[in-house]
């Protein structure tokens, strides 16, 4: 049990020193020392609770994706049937109950309609997006398929994640983390953020930009009640944005046939020539530009509403046809708000609204204080533990102390290699790791003491001490490992930070307490061959 051949010793020392060495960059950077370039290596990340910063959890509402899909289906069905040669006329269109239903004026055209609509309901992907049903000979009902909807939500979340990433990159903060979580969530973590409010403002805005024609005979601003008292088919009432100073008023616009912001190719903050007020200049792509040109030509003199996130931000008139594919959004902007709108428009609209369901922001001062307080406390604790160990077990206590030091270095080193994050609860996990390592040493040392008392000779006592104690040590660590893994799997946030350190610490503490100390003790016994040990 006590023989450690040379190759084994080299191997064990090699691993220990290599892993311990990796912890150096982390330790120096935690204590604020910068290393020369050649000595840089992987470092432990500091959690937001230690470094300061913001953690934001965003959630989307899948039902919104469903209703948007339905609206765009309605738009495409109308357009494709109208554009057919000869046009197919439909009536009694309804989108209630999450499905689209309409009646063909002429039942004889049913096969032609079906043929035209087939590419629409099949979508362009591998899954069929809508089920088509024929009722009473001339009514068609299109119901979303489950796979199609899932796919749509998935796509929406993917692109929402991209949009969020682009917006945060535009903020110019360093090393943000943006991860999609589960079916409908996005986690955003931005370390060391000075102004969390700007971040939230950016994320809170969907930036869905639409240009819709104001209904032909409703050119004035009216309240919702007035609009409802005199309904106009195919239109909807949209309120003015709060900042417009027109509380309660809105405009009646044509529901379909407008332009969406997704055909934008650029957006910059600028100033209007006439009065030098801040505006946002936008450019359309070829397709959007063509529609915009047609709209402005056909409706010169009419007003159109610029709608951002379901609020009218301004409603200018088409004074002349706009053929250049460029337009200007005015409103009550300041330079900052105009600039922010430009950023959000540039990064694209979120395909679905995101709400903040969890937000944690830690100021940089508090983070720094926590690190200092944690480090001081751990320092004091370690010194006391070492004193106690050496006073109780003498030489064996010194071995245990060395094992403890290597244990701490190895935990830091492995965390650096695995690029894990140290959090506040992680510090508590660290203390417990030290506790577990000490316990293993105590078990071994007490056992050796006991074996000596029973009159065993030195080598046999040490050998037996390690052997008998190891069983309890392994059992205890395996059970703790089980607890740690479950913590990691089912825990969230702080619990996970704790679990990671705990799991890494279990392995290193067993290795240092059982393997390393045994090698050292064996070396000493072999060299000195003591007749008695003081333990």
């Amino acid at each position, binding site marked *: 049990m006590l023989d450690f051949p040379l190759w084994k010793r080299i191997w064990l020392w090699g691993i220990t020193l290599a892993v311990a060495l990796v912890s150096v960059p982390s330790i120096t950077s935690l204590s604020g020392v910068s290393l020369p370039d050649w000595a840089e290596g992987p470092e432990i990340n500091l959690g937001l*609770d230690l470094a300061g910063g913001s953690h934001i*959890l965003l*959630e989307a509402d899948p039902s919104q994706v469903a209703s948007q899909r339905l609206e765009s289906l309605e738009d495409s069905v109308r357009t494709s049937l109208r554009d057919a040669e000869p046009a197919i006329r439909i009536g009694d269109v309804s989108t209630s109950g999450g499905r689209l239903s309409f009646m063909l004026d002429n039942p004889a055209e049913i096969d032609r309609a079906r043929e035209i609509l087939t590419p629409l309901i099949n979508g362009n992907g591998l899954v069929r997006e809508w089920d088509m049903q024929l009722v009473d000979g001339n009514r068609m009902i299109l119901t979303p398929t489950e796979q199609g909807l899932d796919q749509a939500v998935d796509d929406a979340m993917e692109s929402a994640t991209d949009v969020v990433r682009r917006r945060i990159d535009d903020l110019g903060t360093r090393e943000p983390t943006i991860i999609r979580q589960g079916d409908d969530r996005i986690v955003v973590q931005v370390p060391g953020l000075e102004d969390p409010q700007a971040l939230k403002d950016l994320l*809170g805005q969907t930036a869905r930009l639409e240009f819709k024609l104001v209904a032909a005979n409703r050119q004035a601003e009216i309240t919702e009640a007035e609009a409802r008292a005199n309904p106009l088919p195919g239109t909807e009432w949209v309120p003015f944005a709060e900042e417009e100073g027109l509380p309660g008023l809105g405009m009646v616009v044509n529901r379909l046939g407008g332009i969406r912001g997704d055909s934008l190719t650029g957006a910059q903050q600028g100033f209007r020539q006439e009065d030098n007020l801040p505006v946002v200049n936008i450019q359309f792509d070829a397709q959007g530009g063509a529609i915009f040109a047609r709209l402005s030509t056909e409706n010169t003199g009419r007003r159109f509403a610029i709608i951002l996130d379901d609020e009218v931000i301004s409603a200018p008139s088409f004074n002349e046809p706009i053929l250049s594919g460029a337009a200007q959004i005015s409103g009550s902007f300041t330079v900052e708000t105009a600039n922010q709108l430009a950023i959000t428009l540039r990064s694209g609209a979120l395909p679905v609204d995101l*709400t903040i*369901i*969890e*937000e*944690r*922001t*830690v100021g940089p*001062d*508090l983070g720094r*204080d*926590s690190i200092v*307080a*944690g480090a001081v*406390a*751990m320092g*004091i*604790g370690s010194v*006391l*533990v070492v004193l*106690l*160990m050496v006073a*109780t077990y*003498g030489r064996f206590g010194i071995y245990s102390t060395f094992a403890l030091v290597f244990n701490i270095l190895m935990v830091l080193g492995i965390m650096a290699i695995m690029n894990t994050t140290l959090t*506040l*609860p992680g*510090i*508590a*996990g660290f203390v*417990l790791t*030290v*506790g*577990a390592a*000490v*316990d293993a040493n*105590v*078990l071994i040392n*007490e056992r050796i003491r006991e074996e000596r008392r029973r009159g065993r000779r030195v080598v046999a006592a040490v050998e037996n001490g390690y052997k*008998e104690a190891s069983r*309890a040590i392994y*059992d*205890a660590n395996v*059970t703790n490992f*089980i*607890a740690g893994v*479950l*913590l990691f*799997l*089912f*825990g*969230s946030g*702080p*619990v996970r930070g*704790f679990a990671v350190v*705990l799991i890494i610490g279990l392995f290193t503490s067993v290795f240092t307490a059982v393997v390393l100390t045994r090698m050292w003790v064996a070396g000493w016994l072999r060299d000195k061959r003591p007749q008695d040990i*003081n*333990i």
Partner: protein
Amino acid sequence: MRLLKLVPENTNIQFLKLRWPFYIVSLLLIAASWGLVMTKGLNYGVDFAGGQEITGTFTQEQEAPIGELRDTLSTLGLGEPVIQRFGDPNQVSIRVRLPESAEGDPAAAERIAEQIISTVTAEHDDFRVDSNNNVSGKVSGEFRDRAVFALLAAMLAIAAYIWIRFEWQFGVGALFALFHDVSLTLGMFALFQLEFSLQIIAAILAIIGYSLNDTIVVYDRIRENLKKYRKMELPQLLDLSVNETLARTVMTSLTLLVALLPLLLFGPASLFGMVAAIVLGIFVGTYSSVYMAAPILIWLGVTSQSFVPEESVADRQERKARGQI
């Protein structure tokens, strides 16, 4: 050099003599703990209750004007905000539960936070916001479910492992000891109305881990002694095992306490609740290994037969051949 001996050699304390009184006291404590949790309830932080929590420091003042804050903030019409000292005397945490209407509406939660911060800074311009947390009711419900699940799963998995490694009686014993520890910790949190957060769940799992360490060390020794002293009465054997591991128990508890106390006294304020729970758990966990996990073995009927391997026919013939029968 003379070494420190925390526990004299060859102790012979008859722990198990007192097993009935202690068992009854413990059962009463468990019942009382659950009673407290049911009646007084746990002081859920924003993690589990949802809501807005702002912590901040009054940089110019010695002590945070908590009473005054309570008066000013209660006029805002946000219900009754929970205002507590947090860490240093000049640090506070302000917690409000969001109204139903603010659920899932980030703008509303933000407005409330802004309202609180501007009200406080209007009267104290030295107020510095240290952290600002907002957890919606939806997420907090998930946190709660996951925490409960993690706790139960960990306890059951551990018990199953011990059952496999030892005997079923030991698995039940460990599970009961863990139940005891978790109950008492929860009871303590309900009694003192300490803030119960996700970190505390981590602390409880640490307690489970620690208590288990103790239990396994004692169990391991019991198993060993069961094989060694075949004829010994069980209570006596349990006493012997506990005494033999006593030095280790004291030493380990002491070193862990020595490591944790500085963290409790000088560590970051946000770790206080967690470290306090673990410190409490060290005492409870040590006690439960001796007085909960061990005596239950008597009632569950562990015998020295439990660990004797079945004698095979070959063994029997060999013994016969040597004339031992």
